[in-house]
Every structure is written in structure tokens, then in C-alpha cells.
């Protein structure tokens, strides 16, 4: 219904506007309806990293897009929680500063939600409450092993 979509859109947008600058340590972002008719409108996205000018989302860098996407996903999850959030190598395009912000933000959210992260990055591993090792000692055969972080 028109009312329900409008309401949900506003809730998600408020969360997104709040989460984005927390994750980016500055800047701003929001969702916009691209038409007056709430039942037909698509949802546009504007993102402005700290100090930069507001421009086409497509011009953002790989790392900036990933961080923006993460902020939007967390906004959706905060309105309608899921039993768990599963991210497969979402940190692959991130530099050290952003991996730090990303992992600290997840650690904070993990007090209320379960997170399952797949990663190759040592810093992301550091926030683990439990670590699962997946290997193939025998070619083609997956085996689970316990992992120690030095």
C-alpha cells in the first residue's frame, strides 16, 4: 500500500542517513524517490564522501561503493532484522583505514545480531568471536579445521 511503502522508505532513509557518516567518519548520503507517485517511483541513491562534491554514484571508487553498500544494507537490517548477516569477502576492495572502520562497526552491531564473515584479511579476522578454518588437504575435498590467530 502507498502509506506502508512511504513509511518504510522514511524509516530506512533515516537509518541510512545516520549510519553512513558513522561508517565513513563524515560525509553524507540519502535515498530519494525519483517520482511523485509513491507506488511507481524507483529509489535513487546519492552519496557524498567527506569533503567531496555530491556526484553520480557510478563515479565513486570501488572502496567507496562497497562502504556505501554496507551502510545501506545495515540500514535495511536495522528496520527488519534477520537472524544473521552473511558477508562473503565484502571487505575485498577496502583499504586498511576502511577495513578498520568496517570491522569496528560490525563488532558493535554484533552485540545484537549474529554476523558470518568470509575473508582473506587479517584485520577482519581480529574481530572474530569464533574462527572457522576451511581447507582442502585432499584436492577437491573440503575439510574444516580449527584456526589459531597469532
Amino acid at each position: 500500500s502507498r502509506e506502508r511503502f512511504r513509511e518504510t522508505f522514511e524509516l530506512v532513509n533515516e537509518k541510512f542517513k545516520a549510519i553512513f557518516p558513522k561508517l565513513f567518519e563524515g560525509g553524507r548520503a540519502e535515498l530519494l524517490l525519483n517520482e511523485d507517485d509513491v507506488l511507481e517511483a524507483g529509489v535513487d541513491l546519492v552519496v557524498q564522501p567527506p569533503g567531496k562534491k555530491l556526484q553520480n554514484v557510478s563515479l565513486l571508487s570501488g572502496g567507496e561503493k562497497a562502504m556505501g553498500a554496507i551502510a545501506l544494507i545495515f540500514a535495511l537490517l536495522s528496520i527488519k532484522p534477520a537472524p544473521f548477516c552473511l558477508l562473503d569477502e565484502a571487505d575485498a576492495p577496502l583499504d586498511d583505514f576502511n577495513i578498520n572502520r568496517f570491522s569496528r562497526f560490525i563488532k558493535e552491531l554484533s552485540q545484537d545480531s549474529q554476523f558470518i564473515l568470509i575473508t582473506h584479511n587479517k584485520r577482519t579476522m581480529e574481530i572474530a568471536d569464533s574462527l572457522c578454518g576451511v581447507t582442502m588437504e585432499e584436492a577437491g575435498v573440503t575439510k574444516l579445521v580449527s584456526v589459531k590467530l597469532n
Partner: protein
Amino acid sequence: MKIKNLEILGFKSFVDRSVFNFREGVTVIVGPNGCGKSNVVDAIRWCLGEQSARRLRGDGMEDVLFNGSDGRKPLGMAEVSLVFSNGDGDFPTAYSDCSEIMVTRRAFRSGESEFFINKTPCRLKDITDLFLDTGIGKRVYSIVEQGRIEEIVNCKPEDRRVLIEEVA
């Protein structure tokens, strides 16, 4: 509702039975390229009722059955079970008196499929209906596959609208 454990047997590279226990907080899965980490994601999606072979990186549903390696013959059955615990008392109404729900999906090389909730046979629809209102429903936004994180930023406005509708 919390995810408690995951058991995989015969699904893709999991030729031997593997059990994942998920505790509170952050679980991190690590390992070299090609060892099976993303296959875990496929297993979870498949168990929750994914019907698109493409979303599981295959051409057809038979691609999820272990099809052999240098040292092992192909297997004829794949089975994945997920166990959820009633952490916040927020189980779907039909199961509000259960402390746990176990969802199981089995597929055979003959093409047959079997589905179970708490070890009782059911239809695929019963599984997808179970999760409809839980955030891991049809357009599950809580699972982001490898290489797909940018999709929500790059997609068309109409597709992004669908995500908001899913939450509504």
C-alpha cells in the same frame, strides 16, 4: 531467532560431513582460494529454498551434488541442515512453542528432492513460507555473495525499490 548450526554432506566440495557451530557475535570463515568457503554460502541459500541454479553458480541443480575429484567418486545425494534457536522468542507462530527449528533439504542425482522441518517431511513451499517474514526471505538482503557487494549501489532504481518493499 538465531542461527545455531549448519551441517553439510555431499553438497559441492563437502564430500565428507561437516558441521559449523555458530555462536553469538562474529563468526569468521577463512581459508585458501577454492577450498569451499563460498560453497558454505551456497549451502545456506540452497537449504533456505534457493531454486535458481545460477545463483548457486551452476547450470543446473545437479551441479550441487559432489561430482568427484582425483581421489573420490561422485556422490548420489546432497544434504544440508540448518538449525535455528528461538533466542528472542520470535519464532514463526506455528513453531512458537519450539526451542529449535531444523530445516533439511536433500537432493538425489535422480533428480528427486526431499524437504524436512524438524525431521518431518514437508514441501519446499513450507520452508520458504517459514522464512517469509524473517529477513532471510525471498529477496534476502542479509546474505551478500562474493563480488556482489556493489550491486545495491550499482543497480537500477526499480531494483532498489524492491529491497524497500521487502522490508515493508
